[in-house]
């Protein structure tokens, strides 16, 4: 989407991700989504008087993995207090990192070749969750709120990009690629719908080469789609405002998915005075070289590298195949694909089957063994299964597990070899010259006639698509 009249948008993203630790950042309460309210709380995360924080070693490890995956500099860091009053903030201050974050000065390369700088990826604690009663369940108009502190103290890493993004599509790509990286490091499960990953977008507009315009922050976007739509809306809103002679007010805005628009949440008239100071209850964090080396050595390959490796197994890939590669990597399916290719499967076929057939059955993926996938693809490749039959077998494997050959036998699949199908179709064409010439002249309905005849002759074993393909080659 391009802005009119030579305007360009300037976007920076702040992404918060919860870390996949067992316990919270500063206490031993379970880090577990979906528990009964206020059952994973203790004096520390409840902010009871006298409690003190102690840093979770695994959270530091995961934060370093994220930093390394984003090519950041890992440096000695400190924790600061960000002081503000709010009911979901149990101490009425958040422990975060301020001028000395653990990770800084990194970058992220996108599939389109563009690079987005990463200013910092620092550690901080999450807040509790409030539900609002009265009104429509949203904050405005509520007359009471109820607070659950289960999430309070859960470890977060906040990743702040430079203002390098120039389109809503690029923003979406950045968010998607970052999500893939966070999942690949094992630091996050990337579950946007559960809120374990959240986006804030800073959007401003300007004419090319002008200085940066006033920016607005859009908070808490929780899907890639709403991220993209919100940025588009906001950029256009600002352009229209400026072209009308107005000025953009620096403020925080809320995206309404239903209405498809952003609206004012809070005007930043006087910047909130957070009175940051170093938290005296915590000491400096300085991971030694040996620890950093261990983390670096154990870092798994990132999506970009994995895509490149799988793409390299294709010969002259076309765009659709590259898309399929992306799906395979995104869904972590390449172990299946690589094993099949190693056993002799055609890379394009293996990738296609994984991207198309397995994508929908991820919840059951454990039931499908790598061997079963390989066998199925090889059967299709050898012509012993039609593509439709292969897809059916895979679907059955996902539902109930099992052995591909046994499933095929049980379903009575015996694919006609393409030679015998061709011979059958040829003989039917000879036997039905009128129908054949009407089909040749363009009467598509007759395809069904021929399919029916083929099915009669082969007792239902033929693959309808294969029949059509044969008819078309002979047209």
């Amino acid at each position, binding site marked *: 989407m391009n802005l009119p009249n030579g305007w360009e948008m300037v976007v920076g993203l702040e992404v918060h991700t919860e870390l996949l630790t067992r316990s919270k950042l500063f206490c031993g309460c379970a880090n577990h989504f979906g528990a009964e309210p206020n059952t994973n*709380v203790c004096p520390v995360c409840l902010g009871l008087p006298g409690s003190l924080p102690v840093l979770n070693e695994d959270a530091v490890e995961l934060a370093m993995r994220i930093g390394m995956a984003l090519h950041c500099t890992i440096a000695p860091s400190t924790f600061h207090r960000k002081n503000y009053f709010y009911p979901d903030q149990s101490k009425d201050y958040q422990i975060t990192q301020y001028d000395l974050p653990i990770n800084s000065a990194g970058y992220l390369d996108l599939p389109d070749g563009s690079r987005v700088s990463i200013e910092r990826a620092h550690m901080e604690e999450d807040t509790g969750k409030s539900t609002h009663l009265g009104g429509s369940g949203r904050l405005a108009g509520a007359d009471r709120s109820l607070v659950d502190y289960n999430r309070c103290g859960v470890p977060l890493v906040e990743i702040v990009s430079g203002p390098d993004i120039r389109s809503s599509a690029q923003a979406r790509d950045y968010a998607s690629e970052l999500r893939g990286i966070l999942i690949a490091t094992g630091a996050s499960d990337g579950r946007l719908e559960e809120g374990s990953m959240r986006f804030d977008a800073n959007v401003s507009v300007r004419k090319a080469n002008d200085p940066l315009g006033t920016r607005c922050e859009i908070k808490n976007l929780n899907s890639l789609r709403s991220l993209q739509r919100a940025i588009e809306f906001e950029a256009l809103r600002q352009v229209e405002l400026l072209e009308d002679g107005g000025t953009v007010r620096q403020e925080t805005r809320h995206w309404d998915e239903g209405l498809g628009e952003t609206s004012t949440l809070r005007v930043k008239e006087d910047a909130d005075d957070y009175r940051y100071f170093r938290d005296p209850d915590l000491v400096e964090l300085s991971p030694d070289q040996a620890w950093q080396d261990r983390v670096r050595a154990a870092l798994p390959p990132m999506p970009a590298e994995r895509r490149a490796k799988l793409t390299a197994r294709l010969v002259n890939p076309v765009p659709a195949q590259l898309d399929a590669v992306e799906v395979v990597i995104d869904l972590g399916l390449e172990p299946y694909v690589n094993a099949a290719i190693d056993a002799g499967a055609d890379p394009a076929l293996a990738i296609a089957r994984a991207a198309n057939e397995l994508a929908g059955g991820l919840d059951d993926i454990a039931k499908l063994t790598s061997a079963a996938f390989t066998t199925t693809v090889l059967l299709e490749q050898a012509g012993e299964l039609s593509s439709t039959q292969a897809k059916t077998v895979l679907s059955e494997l996902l539902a109930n597990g099992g052995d591909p050959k046994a499933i095929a036998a049980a379903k009575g699949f015996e694919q006609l070899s393409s030679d015998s199908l061709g011979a059958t179709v040829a003989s039917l064409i000879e036997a039905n010259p009128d129908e054949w010439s009407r089909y040749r002249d363009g009467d598509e309905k007759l395809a069904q006639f021929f399919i029916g005849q083929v099915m009669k002759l082969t007792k239902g074993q033929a693959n309808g698509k294969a029949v059509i393909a044969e008819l078309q080659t002979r047209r």
Partner: protein
Amino acid sequence: MSSPLTRDEVAYVAKLARLRLSDEELTTFTSQLGQVLEHAADMSTLDLAGVVATAHPFGLVNVLRDDVIRPSLDRDVVLAMAPEADDGRFAVPSILGEAP
């Protein structure tokens, strides 16, 4: 002698600290806080450009705990402390603004 800080500043700080001061208290506090800050002026004349703030007096670094789950508090105990609770959660009057 004028105070190093103004009445308006004191009022702003009170708001930041969620304290409501009466007019009289505003006046008294402006004067009292001013005295303490004036006393602190003996520090402001020092050139401490090269001096670095100390974190821990005995240089402790890297204090970490293993990522193990420890027992949480019983919810009944937690809610028993609450000035107001409802449906397993802490109840508060309406929140007027979004969190920062």
